[in-house]
């Protein structure tokens, strides 16, 4: 029986609806976009479409583990609860921490936050959303008095000018980008401006690309505000009625000066300013390029200032919209998943409300440590027990090698995850198997405040449990049985909804009190809805602030005076380049799930570094060669890609981990610099130096088996369709390639394997193929540099049940068999002349004797034994 279940995509913050046709027995699912979901109306991106390829059980964490040994839930839970209690008793509540994730569902997040802040009594509950959009949160709160996203996706179709700021939406929020592209096609008058140091795929639809100097955005928007003022483009009535602090924000920002600061043409700046000033409906979309900065909060406010000054906020087609990175970044914000929030958008100043609601007198009165601080505290031994939920900080945090050391030395590390082997699970004392997407059940909130359901498609894998269950089990064991007596997610959701309405009276933006008594059936049938959902807005609310009412004490929005600041660590003689980091189209975060889908690994199978050709020449780098990139904190190795981006800036993707690459963890290089307000790391700007990495050999291996490749200086692993691909390099040559390949690279003991070898020792070329039962099992190509054949044809051969003779003989060329002319049956074996060749020559040249055939083709002129057969051809 195939059931169709509506659920939500677990990747970016667009929050697309999915219609999943499930074959429970086979644990297979066909993924389609949900036509009725307002986030995507049936569209899906490459990652979402490939979800069906990621639900396999291979690689899943199926059983609780303690120190690498599988154990029962009872024992694991007891150990975690006892250990946390012991640390708290001895060192106090601030000696423990939870580190959550935008992958957690709202219900999971709610109980985690409730346990830490309300009952353990520490603020040390932070989340990877800190790395993602905490600057937006801080900016929203400064401007609006609340963490409120004013606008919605529908504005894509209404806007007349869309500004993508620090956002490669084409890759990072693809379905939103598709909607914008469609909007532009439907309305050619719609202008698109992309503000990004890189010329990204999003520039494809841009009318104007402003390749700003990295980190200079605040100058651009301060300049815009000044321009709007100078050109009579302000909405003075709006400013007067609904805002405060405007007088302080205007400065002297001549376009030429702005252009110089931002490294732009003054004409382009002028064009942008003019469009903003003269267009009625302007929508600013911003993302990590703004947020991941030591002045991220200020940049957010610099943008919002312009919208407030023109009254272009929260209106149809007009406003500011932060594109969140994760499926439930917003849900996390709603429940207080960040260390400096409490719950339901209640500030620490109102802590007694939460304490009373929870009946938790020990609720912490102060904010806890934010991500970078939190892992620093672990490193310093101040935090002695940490529980990491569904995230991979050893990869994603700045100065990630320090995070690794911190966890390696931490007294007690618990990781709950759905994947067994990650860089972070490797450092855990206790592993708790969490249900993954397709198993868990609850709600998420997307970038436009829309709450949707994620629904279970399959039975849990192994002994995996929902995160909320795991957390409440620990809470109960820590003595909070009554307060964590939830039976299912809807119990938690009701409490969460009730808290949002608790003593709210219109003071807090986040209010979903309409769901405080939602029935289990209603929860199951929940339709995607934008909060607030309360008595005033029972069907939810698409846009906020159109009425000019804000959540500040005065009810007015605040202008924030922004003094532009450069990124903290500027390039130096030793580290002359700027490292920028970001997402790829087909991978998600640390690849624990997307890398399971072969089709998602084709686009970019190896960590790479984008660099301007002139910079590449200056540093001696070759296209497709390897580069060693080094910051003060760590180094990595990546494949060189020449791109016409800004001089002095390089870009690397953020995704690779030690599971898939020996030297691909970019997080280790990133400077541990944070925004003073939002505490969001400056992940887009780290000074680095670069040089060629010149191993003595480079290679690739394609194998139907997952190989245990050891003793190799550089390796990349990726999964293909029916095979695994490895890109390798080494700093020393083995004595004998033939032995080395069989022992270290292929490590096959199959007795019936057949081997093909090709070696050009002088050129350092070695190639080998292992065949098993006429099928290509493994193929290995080694050279002295990166000049290796294309992998595509060989990859296809791996999937074939049987190779033809021609394919087998062409295998080690790396190219498909060449269609040689059919020469017919060989008659002259000495000169290898076939019957058809001879007949053709006889006909074309009018030959009449075998001697003439001999003169023409050499046939029959050596041993002569074929002459009778040649003569017979004249018959």
């Amino acid at each position: 029986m195939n059931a169709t279940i509506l659920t939500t995509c677990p990747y970016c913050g667009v929050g697309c609806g999915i219609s999943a046709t499930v074959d429970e027995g086979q644990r297979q699912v066909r993924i389609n976009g949900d036509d009725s979901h307002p986030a995507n109306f049936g569209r899906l991106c490459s990652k979402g479409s490939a979800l069906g390829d990621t639900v396999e059980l291979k690689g899943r964490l199926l059983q609780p583990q303690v120190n690498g040994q599988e154990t029962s839930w009872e024992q694991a839970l007891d150990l975690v609860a006892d250990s946390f209690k012991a640390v708290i008793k001895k060192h106090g509540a601030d000696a423990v921490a939870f580190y959550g994730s935008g992958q957690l569902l709202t219900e999971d997040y709610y109980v985690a936050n409730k346990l830490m802040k309300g009952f353990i009594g520490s603020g040390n509950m932070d989340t990877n959303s800190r790395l993602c959009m905490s600057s937006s949160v801080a900016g929203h709160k400064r401007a609006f008095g609340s963490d409120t996203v004013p606008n919605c996706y529908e504005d894509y179709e209404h806007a007349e000018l869309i500004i993508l700021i620090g956002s490669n939406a084409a890759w990072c929020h693809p379905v939103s980008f598709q909607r914008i592209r469609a909007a532009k096609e439907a309305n050619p008058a719609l202008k698109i401006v992309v503000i990004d140091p890189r010329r990204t795929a999003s520039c494809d639809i841009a009318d104007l690309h402003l390749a700003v100097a990295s980190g200079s955005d605040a100058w651009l928007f301060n300049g815009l505000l000044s321009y709007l003022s100078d050109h009579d483009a302000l909405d003075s009535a709006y400013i007067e009625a609904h805002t405060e602090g405007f007088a302080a924000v205007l400065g002297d920002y001549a376009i030429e000066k702005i252009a110089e600061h931002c490294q732009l043409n003054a004409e382009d700046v002028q064009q942008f300013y003019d469009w903003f000033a003269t267009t009625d409906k302007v929508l600013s979309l911003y993302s990590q390029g703004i947020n991941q900065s030591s002045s991220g909060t200020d940049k957010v406010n610099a943008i919002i200032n312009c919208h407030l000054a023109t009254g272009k906020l929260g209106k149809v087609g007009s406003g500011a919209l932060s594109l969140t990175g994760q499926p439930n970044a917003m849900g996390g914000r709603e429940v207080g998943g960040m260390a400096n929030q409490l719950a339901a958008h209640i500030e620490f100043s109102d802590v007694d409300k939460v304490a009373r609601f929870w009946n938790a007198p020990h609720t912490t009165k102060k904010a806890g440590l934010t991500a970078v601080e939190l892992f620093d505290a672990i490193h310093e031994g101040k935090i002695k027990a940490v529980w990491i939920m569904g995230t991979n900080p050893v990869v994603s945090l700045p100065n990630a090698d320090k995070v690794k050391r911190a966890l390696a030395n931490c007294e007690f590390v618990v990781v709950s995850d759905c994947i067994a082997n990650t860089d972070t699970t490797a450092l855990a004392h206790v592993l708790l198997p969490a249900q993954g997407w397709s198993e868990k059940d609850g709600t998420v909130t997307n970038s436009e405040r829309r709450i949707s359901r994620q629904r279970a498609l399959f039975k849990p894998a192994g002994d995996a449990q929902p995160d909320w269950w795991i957390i409440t089990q620990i809470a109960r064991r820590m003595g909070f049985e009554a307060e964590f007596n939830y039976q299912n997610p809807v119990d938690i959701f009701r409490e969460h909804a009730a808290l949002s309405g608790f003593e709210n009276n219109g003071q807090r933006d986040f209010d979903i009190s309409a769901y405080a008594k939602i029935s289990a059936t209603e929860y199951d049938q929940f339709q995607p809805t934008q909060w607030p959902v309360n008595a005033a807005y029972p069907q939810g609310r698409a846009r906020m602030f159109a009425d000019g009412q804000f959540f500040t004490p005065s009810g007015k929005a605040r202008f924030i005076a922004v003094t532009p600041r450069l990124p903290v660590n500027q390039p130096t003689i030793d580290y002359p380049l700027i490292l920028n980091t970001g997402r790829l189209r087909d991978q998600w975060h640390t690849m624990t799930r997307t890398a399971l889908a072969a089709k998602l690994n084709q686009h970019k199978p190896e960590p790479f570094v984008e660099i301007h050709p002139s910079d590449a020449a200056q540093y001696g780098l070759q296209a497709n060669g390897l580069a060693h990139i080094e910051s003060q904190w760590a180094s990595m190795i990546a494949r060189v890609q020449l791109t016409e981006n800004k001089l002095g800036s390089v870009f690397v993707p953020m995704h690779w981990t030690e599971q898939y690459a020996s030297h691909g963890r970019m997080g280790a290089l990133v400077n541990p610099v944070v925004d003073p307000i939002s505490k969001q790391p400056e992940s887009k700007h780290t000074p680095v130096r670069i040089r060629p990495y010149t191993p003595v050999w480079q290679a690739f291996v394609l194998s139907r088996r997952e190989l245990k490749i050891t003793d190799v200086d550089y390796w990349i692993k990726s999964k293909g369709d029916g095979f695994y691909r490895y890109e390798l390099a080494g700093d020393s040559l083995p004595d004998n390639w033939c032995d080395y390949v069989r022992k270290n690279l292929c490590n096959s003991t199959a007795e019936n394997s057949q081997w093909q070898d090709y070696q050009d020792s002088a050129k350092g070329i070695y190639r080998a193929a292992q065949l098993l039962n006429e099928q290509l099992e493994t193929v290995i190509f080694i050279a002295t540099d990166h000049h290796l054949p294309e992998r595509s044809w060989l990859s296809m051969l791996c999937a074939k049940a049987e190779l033809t003779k021609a394919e087998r003989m062409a295998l080690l060329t790396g190219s498909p068999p060449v269609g040689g002319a059919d020469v017919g049956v060989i008659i002259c074996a000495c000169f290898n002349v076939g019957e058809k060749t001879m007949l053709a020559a006889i006909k074309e040249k009018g030959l009449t004797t075998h001697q003439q055939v001999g003169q023409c083709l050499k046939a029959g002129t050596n041993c002569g034994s074929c002459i009778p057969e040649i003569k017979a051809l004249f018959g």
Partner: protein
Amino acid sequence: MHNKKQKLVVIGNGMAGMRTIEELLSAAPDKYDITVFGAEPYGNYNRIMLSAVLAGDKTIEDIVINNRQWYIDNHIILHAGESKAVISIERGLQKVIAKDGTTADYDRLLIATGSKAVIPDVTGCDLDGVISFRDIFDVNKMLAYSRSHKKAVVLGGGLLGLEAANGLVLRGMDVTVIHNHEVLLNRQMDKPAGLLLQTELEKKGIKFKMAAKLKCLLGDANNHISTVNFEDGSELDCDLFIMAIGVRPNITLAKQAGLYCERGIVVNDTLQSYDPSIYAVGECIQHRGDTFGLVAPLFEQAKVCANHLSAHGVAEYITLPTATKLKVTGIHLFSIGDIQGDAQCESLCFSDSALGIYKKLVLKDDRLVGAVLYGDTADGVWYQQLLEQETNISVLRDGLVFGKAYS
């Protein structure tokens, strides 16, 4: 006036001599009265196809190149048979004398006496049942033994020895090849190729005793070979012993006539000996230090020699590397040039053991100087061309071993 023709006498009715005559007849059909002496009682036959006759793939009739009628048609006097073997060259008189007293005067003499099998330096080589593999007589003898005897031993794992062994196995004999090197065809094959060949021949039923040192041959009461003894103390029963450890130029007659000889009759680039009226071609000669054992250079020599005999006088003989093939059904093997190489050489190797394919190309200064192909010889001719033409292969290099189609 009828212009009197010159007299050309040919000693040796084999492939080299008769190919020269064919070339001559086509170049200058009326220049000479031609007389041919041959010690075998046949017309001219294709000696290199004797293996095929032994293996049963061909009959003697199949391998005849020029039957007696051809001699008649071309007005050639043929003196064939044992009694017509030439025993003396009277250079002063410009006359040759056969065993039975037949004489012939010459203006030009062509010596094409070929080669003789090398006899191993051990006792017992004169026993009955110890033969070489050179002519139809030998083949007939081997065929007769195969009908009445069981155990054959072939001395020599070269081309001839292996072809003899293959033929005898096909004729039902129990055959062991003894070879003084650990690699078969070690002049043409390197070790991997030699091992593949050995494996394939073993599948055909041939046994091998490799790196063997022969001690002596022992006979029975009838003075017929019965046992082969080795230096390591082992022995083999033997009914028929084939000597195939190579040939040496047959220069007995030339030396007797006082022609300058070293290992062979020394000739210049026109195939002329130290006696200006005497030419020599084929396996009996020595040209610029080389002697010959394969057919391809003989044909080239024939062409050059005929050019000079016909007084065109423009061709020069150059020894090109010769490709080797083994005439054993189902075995594809090709070897040319310097297959070991020196310190300045580079090699390209390809192998697919399960398919029985091995290829090695030896390069020097971006030129192909040697090739060994086993199992897949389709591109042998192409490699030979590259080698002969000294083509710079640097741009072809990556695909070279995979064949012309990939280069």
